[in-house]
């Protein structure tokens, strides 16, 4: 389940970065992948649709939002947590 969640998140991020999922590694940041603020908002929307969850994220204060976007791995972990909290 967990591995599957992570791969689905990787696919969403890869699509925003216009890359193959295999070219997206977990230690990369969204900046590294060339995802700007609009790409991020689109990725969050895709995550919400894919997992049927609410992602708490305000573009005005990303650091205060309860959703860590500092790396691909961080986003994966955050989505896992939200899925567990909201669907568990």
């Amino acid at each position: 389940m967990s591995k599957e969640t992570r791969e689905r998140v990787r696919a969403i991020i890869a699509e925003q970065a216009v890359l193959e999922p295999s070219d997206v590694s977990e230690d990369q940041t969204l900046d590294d992948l060339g995802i700007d603020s609009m790409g991020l908002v689109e990725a969050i929307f895709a995550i919400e649709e894919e997992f049927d969850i609410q992602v708490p994220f305000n573009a005005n204060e990303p650091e205060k939002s309860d959703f860590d976007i500092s790396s691909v791995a961080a986003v994966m972990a955050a989505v896992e947590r939200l899925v567990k909290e909201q669907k568990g």
Partner: protein
Amino acid sequence: MRRVVITGAGTINPLGHSVDATLEAFREGRCGIGPLDIRDVDRLAIRIGGQVREYDADARFNRQQQALYDRFTQFTLIAAEEAIRQSGLTFSGELAAEAGVVLGTSGGGLNTQDENYRAVYEEGKNRVHPFIVPKLMNNAAASHVSMTHNLKGPSFTVATACASSNHAMGQAFWLVRSGAARAMITGGSESMLCFGGVKAWEGLRVMSRDACRPFSANRNGMVQGEGAGVFVFEEYEHAKKRGAEILAEIVGFSMSSDASDIVMPSQQGAARAIQGALRDARLSPDQVGYINAHGTGTAANDKTECAAVANVFGASADDVMISSTKSMHGHLIGGTGAVELLACIMALRDGVIAPTIGYEEPDPECALDVVPNEAREAKVDFTLSNAFAFGGLNAVLALGRAP
């Protein structure tokens, strides 16, 4: 070139149903933002807004009128009535042919669209009212003002998102200045506070859930409002000859386009519009006492706007007062510049500077005198009013005291 003055003002907005009520709220630093009272609000993540309260459409318009007037048109007609009454003008004969109406709106009849999409999609109805198209169209408000007041000159609607009413008032200014019109009814209106309207804005993730705190370090986004502001712009000699009371003079206007990003603001684009308005008005920065900021309360706008002002004003940036009244009435999108122009008139005519309320923490990236939380008395000779829209379209007006 002819001089252009303001001889009438009208408004309905979250702070009040008239100019007097609005200016009183500005002076008191009162907030008109509160819990949204709209259908399906429980399905929204953002549940606050600047709604026009205690509004009874039935008391203002009969059933036939309401079949044709979306809420944004109703607000426009109410504000136009107040402005034209104050000006003392009646439009007939030659003057009617030389007077028109240019108004800004972004969403037009969005409530009408929302209600009728709901009817056909959600409720499965196969029929809508015959007047939906003339009710929802963006130029409905301008057309009804023209019909109600017999304005037969140049008339149209301007849609540049959050800068719509500044662009509209700029066009009206040019029409009178050039001699193409003797008087223009101008300003803007917006009413997007319906389920679909707010839901769309939620998607951008730039909305605050609790308050609009422009320039404050802890600001966390914009809050949407609704309402209208309408003015009578009149050729100065015409106004003087008939002994009209003049509220202020429009002395300059400038527009620019960022040509860069569909949502992120540009310091250079904003600075070029501010610089252009000063040049058009033949003003140097040290002559400007007050700037009504675009000041949306988003992280991006406020720091970009402050940087643009600091850049254009140089050493004078420390002396100019700059406030955002969106902290009180919210962001009226296509109508916002019109309601905000009232703060410029108040500064010039009454010597009172409207505050930026909700200001809690200084932000080093917004290190200007933002008139925090309390109105201030000051003698001001010239003011600017900024509007910077999504799409990178900027419009800045310069005003001076009544001649």
